[in-house]
């Protein structure tokens, strides 16, 4: 059996090496798709100055292969490009990424503590009303487009619950240095409790909407893997031992079915990250989702092509890494997995 730490290290190394061609492919695809139909800069940037337009025209009049080569060589040198107006891409993404991660992790936490118990309830009452109610709940989230959920939460729920619906803090920037760019963590690091509470309140609504919309997969996966585990003998014997139904379900049955549910991590990463584009825009959250929204010309802004390529690549890396983490967790939880 190849289950020693060194086997795991080799496994992770192999997967990271496999990531390189995928990442290259993503950059090529996104670059080609976003650049190939841009020929006349004046159409795209009607408000740009003469010199900016001339620069833009010089950049985009080259053949697409040459454009890509210039971009790619710069990228290898650590230059992520700049918008046509000249603002560089890398600092904006570096500042926004932690805020987005904070939002995504908060949603993931909510998904786990709410979505998984719902799956257990659905499995316990399979085919009966509890099952149907849970299904209605998660399909409601599934059927709600992110923008609709975000808008409804911002307009109707925020005033109802007295929660803020814009930004990270009530007044920005906060009176302490932002080392991590994660709002709650920064406030805690500064030892400023009122600001931490304030930041937490600001985080609550966008994270809840994002979690609600993506919860379906976790609930569904838990339900169906619980259905697989519940008829097994060890669950029956736990019940026969006289354990309460709660302990049988949450300690014995859920523990095994959670192994399958970890694969959800990888599946939902895509949905959570894609959701941030609209959520961050509606809630004024200063992450890379909002950056992506502006970079692709959302809301009628002038598009930022270098920014769009970079942000799509960052999202893709996020999804691939989430899948890798899910695979590692799965292997750690399931002793039958061989790393070699």
């Amino acid at each position: 059996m190849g289950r020693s730490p060194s086997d795991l290290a080799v496994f992770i190394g192999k997967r990271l090496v496999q990531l390189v061609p995928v990442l290259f492919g993503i950059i090529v695809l996104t670059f080609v798709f976003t650049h190939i139909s841009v020929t006349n800069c004046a159409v795209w940037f009607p408000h740009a100055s003469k010199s900016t337009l001339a620069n833009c025209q010089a950049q985009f009049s080259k053949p697409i292969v040459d454009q890509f080569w210039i971009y790619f060589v710069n990228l290898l040198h650590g230059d992520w490009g700049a918008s046509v107006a000249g603002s560089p891409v890398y600092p904006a993404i570096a500042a926004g990424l932690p805020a987005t991660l904070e939002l995504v992790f908060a949603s993931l936490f909510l998904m786990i503590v709410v979505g998984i118990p719902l799956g257990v309830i659905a499995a316990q009452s399979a085919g009966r009303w509890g099952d149907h109610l849970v299904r209605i709940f998660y399909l409601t989230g599934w059927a709600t487009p992110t923008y609709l959920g975000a808008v409804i939460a911002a307009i109707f729920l925020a005033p109802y619950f007295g929660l803020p619906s814009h930004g990270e803090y009530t007044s920005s920037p906060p009176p302490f240095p932002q080392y991590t760019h994660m709002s709650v963590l920064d406030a805690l690091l500064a030892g400023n409790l009122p600001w931490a509470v304030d930041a937490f309140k600001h985080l609550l609504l966008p994270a809840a909407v994002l979690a609600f919309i993506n919860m379906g997969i976790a609930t569904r996966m838990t339900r169906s893997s619980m259905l697989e585990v519940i008829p097994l003998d060890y669950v029956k014997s736990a019940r026969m031992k006289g354990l309460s139904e709660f302990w049988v379900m949450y300690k014995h049955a859920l523990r095994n079915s959670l192994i399958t549910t970890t694969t959800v991590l990888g599946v939902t990463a895509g949905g959570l990250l894609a959701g941030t584009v609209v959520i961050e825009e509606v809630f004024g959250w200063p992450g890379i989702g909002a950056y992506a929204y502006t970079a692709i010309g959302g809301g009628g802004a002038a598009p930022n092509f270098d920014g769009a390529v970079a942000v799509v690549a960052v999202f893709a890396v996020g999804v691939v890494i989430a899948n890798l983490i899910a695979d590692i967790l799965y292997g750690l939880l399931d002793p039958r997995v061989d790393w070699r």
Partner: protein
Amino acid sequence: MSGPTSSGSPRPPPTASAGRRTWNAVVGFMRVLRANPLTMAGFIIVCLIGVVALIVVVAPHLLTPYGPDQLTTDYNLAPSWQHPAGTDGIGLDIYSETLYALPLDLAIAFAIAGAAMIGGGGLGLVAGFWDRPGTAGGWVSIVVLRITDIFLAFPSLILALAIAVSLGRGVWQLIVAILLTWWPFYVRLVRGETLAVKHLPYVMAARAAGVTEGRIVLRHVLRNVLEPVVVYFTLDVGTVLVTLSTIGFVGLGLVYPSQAEWGSMMSYYQNAGLITAQPWTVLGPGVAIFVTVLAFSLLGDGLRDILDPRSRRVLAGTGTGSSATHEEPPVPVAEDQGELPTATEAPASG
């Protein structure tokens, strides 16, 4: 799945077994609907939505009091009997506009999901069936799968947005932008099913009987791959709807006042500041997209239970009227297959 029954058709079916198979499919489909009230509800709402869309196309005045571009003199009105969903800033009746958007949204969603199913599914069938290493088919298979992997590595919505910005705004641009990111799902799905089916004895039997490879793929493999694909397609129509309206909301889809599409309508109200000032503008397009996607999800999610053997046991239990509980022993697989056709079931005729 819901093809015509043999008893209802005017001329007799070509062979008794073909008619019997259709009949079995219909019976199986009805049993799935009956087993879960939510699936039934989804099916009924999807049918209603289809009827409403048809009426809007054929005779819109039956349902919509105002024409698609008819400007009234009522600006920014709250919902009333005259304007069930209120009016917007230029005097358009939001209820009528929402209904006009229905056939267009549905058509785009079906076009994208359908084209992705046929194109991606076809590639998946080829890549799954002719994948012996070293042959030309093997190379094609590897290339297709590598490209698919790249596409599946990132959220399709984000790439579709990036493509939509460079293509410009319009129906065809929207379809192309989403389609370019949508086909890889079907490649993976159909390839997986094909791999599972192609080594089954009946395929070997067909080969031994001298049936050509092309005919085996079309007649024997495709038919057995079809069921999970159709189920996935049902769910997918809803997902495409969400994606295309999100592109509309971001402001890269259709241009609203000239073409009504739910996401673009929301985008227009949002940018005009109407959503906060007059929240009822959310109601028309918001309720419409929510109900439509929910209906397709209810139907597709219920149908998907057939493919999941774990859920199928429970389903089979409720289907026969007994109260299904987890303490009951699982229904034997052989009995199961008699009730609900499975993905890997061999066809009645070979």
